[in-house]
């Protein structure tokens, strides 16, 4: 979907981006991760040519973007920034309709689209269409920011630390919300972040930048479990193995092997003890499961599907074993 080849950007004598190449498949979220000044935002801005590359090619859907004029290119790509950038002089509806209006859509069609998008971002159109940005909370503003970027249904979305200015609790909420929206709209998303947890949570693939170069490109699990350099290992953090927990679901470690005491309970036809045990769903992430097990002082949980049917057991030992599967020892 997006192919970037040998991308370079020089600002005078400074090389901001050096020989960056990577591909992102359709419908994937690719997080450009790295410390400040590593070239991730410059790379993002070269994709819709807010910054003109010094050399290299960017293809979207097989088409070299340098063949398109800059304004047409920008109108065909959704863009969300950290400060949201909603225009304070325009209502929510007018903000969402900016790109459709630039593209010369029929007024009724744009309005219908605005109302539709508010439904997508879970805000009531009747309540919010005529409001102004100053009447919205930070989280609501960023939802409108996402809706505005989606207005003309662009295949590609660029997001520059979109949730960076939102407090940690609401950030989790809006990240979940964005993942829900993404499942609906299935865009190809490039997402700049310096937050490893955010990357692990959202990314299908991660490009870790340092000094203008990609240090490692791969899945979050690749970077956490198999870093290819000290820099990557250090950046992902001393607890990177623990961070893998977030990527794993109960379903990944569920087993049919019953704990000994549970067999005895079942054998004695008493279901009481089972009720005192933690019950998890196959989709629960293992960080939550393990945390709850530790909190309860238990070493296994029952896994039931959403209809309450028994799926298997989740053993603490299996979780720990799974955590260290497929890791390369720390490089030193």
């Amino acid at each position, binding site marked *: 979907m997006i192919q970037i080849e040998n991308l370079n950007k020089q600002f005078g004598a400074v090389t901001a981006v050096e020989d960056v190449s990577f591909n992102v498949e359709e419908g994937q979220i690719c997080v450009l991760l790295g410390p400040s000044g590593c070239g991730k935002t410059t790379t993002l801005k070269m994709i819709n040519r807010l910054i003109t590359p010094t050399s290299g090619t960017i293809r979207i859907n097989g088409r070299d973007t340098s063949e398109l004029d800059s304004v047409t290119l920008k109108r065909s790509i959704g863009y969300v920034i950290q400060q949201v950038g909603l225009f*304070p002089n325009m209502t929510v509806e007018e903000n969402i309709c900016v790109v459709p209006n630039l593209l010369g859509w029929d007024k009724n069609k744009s309005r219908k689209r605005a109302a539709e998008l508010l439904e997508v971002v879970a805000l009531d159109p009747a309540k919010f269409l005529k409001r102004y940005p100053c009447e919205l909370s930070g989280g609501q503003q960023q939802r409108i920011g996402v809706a505005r970027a989606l207005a003309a249904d662009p295949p590609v979305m660029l997001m520059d630390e979109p949730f960076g200015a939102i407090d940690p609790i609401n950030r989790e909420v809006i990240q979940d919300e964005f993942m829900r929206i993404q499942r609906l709209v299935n865009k190809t998303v490039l997402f700049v972040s310096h937050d490893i947890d955010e990357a692990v949570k959202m990314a299908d693939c991660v490009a870790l930048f340092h000094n203008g170069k990609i240090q490692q490109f791969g899945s979050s699990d690749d970077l956490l479990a198999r870093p290819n350099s000290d820099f990557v290992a250090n950046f992902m953090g001393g607890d990177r193995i623990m961070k893998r927990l977030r990527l794993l679901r109960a379903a990944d470690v569920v087993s049919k092997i019953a704990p000994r005491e549970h067999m005895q309970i079942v054998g004695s036809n008493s279901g009481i003890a089972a009720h005192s045990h933690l019950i998890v769903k196959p989709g629960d992430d293992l960080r939550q499961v393990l945390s709850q097990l530790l909190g309860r002082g238990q070493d296994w949980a029952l896994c039931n599907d959403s209809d309450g049917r028994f799926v298997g057991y989740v053993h603490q030992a299996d979780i720990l074993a799974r955590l260290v599967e497929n890791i390369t020892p720390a490089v030193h």
Partner: protein
Amino acid sequence: MADLLNRFWQGLQFYWGDISYLTVQHLQIVAVSGVLAIAIALPLGVWMSRPANQRYAMASIQVLNVGQAIPKLALLALAMSLIGVGSGAAIIGLFVATLLPVAVNTYEGLRAVPQHLVEAAEAMGMTPRETLWKVEIPNALNVIFAGIRTALAINVGTAPLAFLVGGGGLGELIFTGIDLNDFGMMLAGALSTALLAIAVDLGCGLIQHAAVSRGLRMAGRQ
């Protein structure tokens, strides 16, 4: 105070014919010089605020400052010596004196529009012209209007001097009143000028209220 009001009231009644005639003349001078100044200073402010022209901005402002630094009376005298006695000289003098607040406020208002709004506009595919008209100017309007209101207040208040260069206006009552030691006549001219200044400012305020987006007014109150 009561005495003052009484004399103003008597003057007002006595000179009502003059006042209404001279107010129209006064307004004509203000309107022509003000509209001309706004027509020049607004585009100039916009031009100065474009990133490519910022290095000329300070020089331009200093040139306009001359209009403010020279005493208004001298400005009118200069204009009169250039084009002769009459309302033309008055209009030119007032025009020069009005330029600076409008140009400076337009320039500063546009520069104060948050950079991320301009970047968002560009990233969404607005051309520089579209960004200016749809984002920058609407969000700078309050500051621009503040400049226009300051300029017009100066203009209305300076316009009585037009009488001295043969431009007419309410100055005729003021200066004649001083010369004849006719306090009622002087007050009739001076207070009318003050009321006119308030009326012009109120009118501008109404236009501003209609022109500035409700979203900005609400944001300003927070």
